[in-house]
């Protein structure tokens, strides 16, 4: 199967949107104890750029959860492979996601973090693909809404490739 890439969002469009998100979040979280929770690995690029657009103090932390199909045991169950280093009880948590599509991993993450009693728990996603949703999850801050395409670049990979692209592109199957 051959693929080609079709540009969806340019570097400039992405950065402009992140600046807008940063401004909104800075206003909404003014005076609060904000913890940015970056979901490894794809969200790193977005989390870094977003945090640079914040004009308020915040704590940056990382969390990683296992993904289906990467376990040696195919009947395994999702688990946290790298937990947060900070305690979030009583703090305002903002989960930073590169993309929300099926909602499966985010649903798990929300359930897990809720048990730690944060003061607030919201989601910021650069990309939202509601057409692919399987379980309903809230997206409080959304960068772009994408149609049902497979997106790569700016942290999003296909078999570990394309993460480093500065823009976001659709991976399109080429007709033979």
């Amino acid at each position, binding site marked *: *199967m*051959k*693929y*080609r*890439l*079709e*540009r969806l969002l340019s570097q400039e469009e992405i950065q402009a949107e992140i600046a807008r998100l940063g401004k909104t979040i800075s206003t909404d979280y003014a005076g609060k104890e904000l913890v940015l929770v970056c979901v490894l690995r794809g969200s790193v690029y977005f989390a870094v750029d977003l945090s640079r657009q914040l004009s308020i103090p915040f704590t940056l932390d990382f969390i990683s959860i296992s*993904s*289906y*199909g*990467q*376990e040696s045991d*195919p*009947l*395994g*169950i*999702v688990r946290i492979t790298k937990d947060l280093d900070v305690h979030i009880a009583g703090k305002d948590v903002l989960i930073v996601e590169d993309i929300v*599509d*099926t909602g*499966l*991993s985010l*649903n*798990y993450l929300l*359930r897990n973090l809720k048990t730690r009693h944060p003061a607030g728990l919201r989601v910021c996603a650069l990309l939202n693909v509601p*057409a*692919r949703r*399987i*379980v*309903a999850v809230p997206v409080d801050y959304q960068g772009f809404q994408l149609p*049902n395409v*497979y997106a790569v*670049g700016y942290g999003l990979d*296909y*078999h570990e*490739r394309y993460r480093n*692209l500065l*823009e976001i*592109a659709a*991976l399109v199957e080429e007709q033979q």
Partner: protein
Amino acid sequence: MTVITVSRQFGAGGELLARAVAEETGFLLVDRKLIASGLAELGLPPQLVRFDETAPKAEQLEKKRRFYVTALHEYLTDLAANRSIVLLGRGGQFLFRDHPDAFHIFIHAPLTQRVEWVSQIYGLEEKSAVRLVREQEQRKKRYIRRAFGHSWVDLALYDLILNTARLTPQGAIEIALFAFSRFSERKRQQLSPATVPEIPEAGKASPFKHQSETEFARVLDFYNIPWQYEPRTFPLQWDSEGHVTEAFTPDFYLPDQNIYVELTTQRQKLVWRKNKKMRRLKELYPEVNAKIIYGKDYSSLLKKFGLDKNELKNDRRQP
């Protein structure tokens, strides 16, 4: 669950028999009153709840008939899904004609006998009793004809036909109970261990029809999302006799999300049938949340998890 339907001529003692059978078997007696309040609770407009009593204009008849039968069928199917019932009248012999565990009884008696009983019970003179019996007979016939477009005098509809004048009402009850016990025994024998269908348990290995369904269940298990496999069938079309001619059984139900999910790995061109069923489902059951996961969505899901079989070669970077 089991359904015993009791159809009867007016005044032949069908009510008495239905009540006695319900008492003896412990099944829920479902009569006109219970159904009317059940349909009203479902939000059916009052004039449709009383479809059997009203005389709609001809041009509205077909639309109303279909609506009423659909609602009635859905209500009774739901009811019978959870418990065994004895259904008195309402065209149960049509509604549950193809139900694998339904037993159909018809109760009749000659006119003179029915008139005699009716005049005794209602304290009426013979002339008035004849009139009442005739009126009720007409109403029943009209209801069945209107709702199901079929005559009720069809031997093939019934498993047991009893003449209460010859057997006495008490004798008819005893025979009905005996016949039903034989019917149940026969069913038990048919369901020998080899033929008992496996009941899929949520989260356990289940007899999935497609590899994609097995995989999807594993994904849900992995993310700790409770699911049920094909727990409900939605009737979508009925013929004039009330038989289900088209139905839709979505693959999964996610109780926490309250959503039905249908997986299809067919090519996009071939999914129009499923799309059509989905539209019809939303028309008839607007309260039900359902979505189709198309082949394209599914392959995105696999891609995301790195499970697609395709290897990445010869890509041209041109964003």
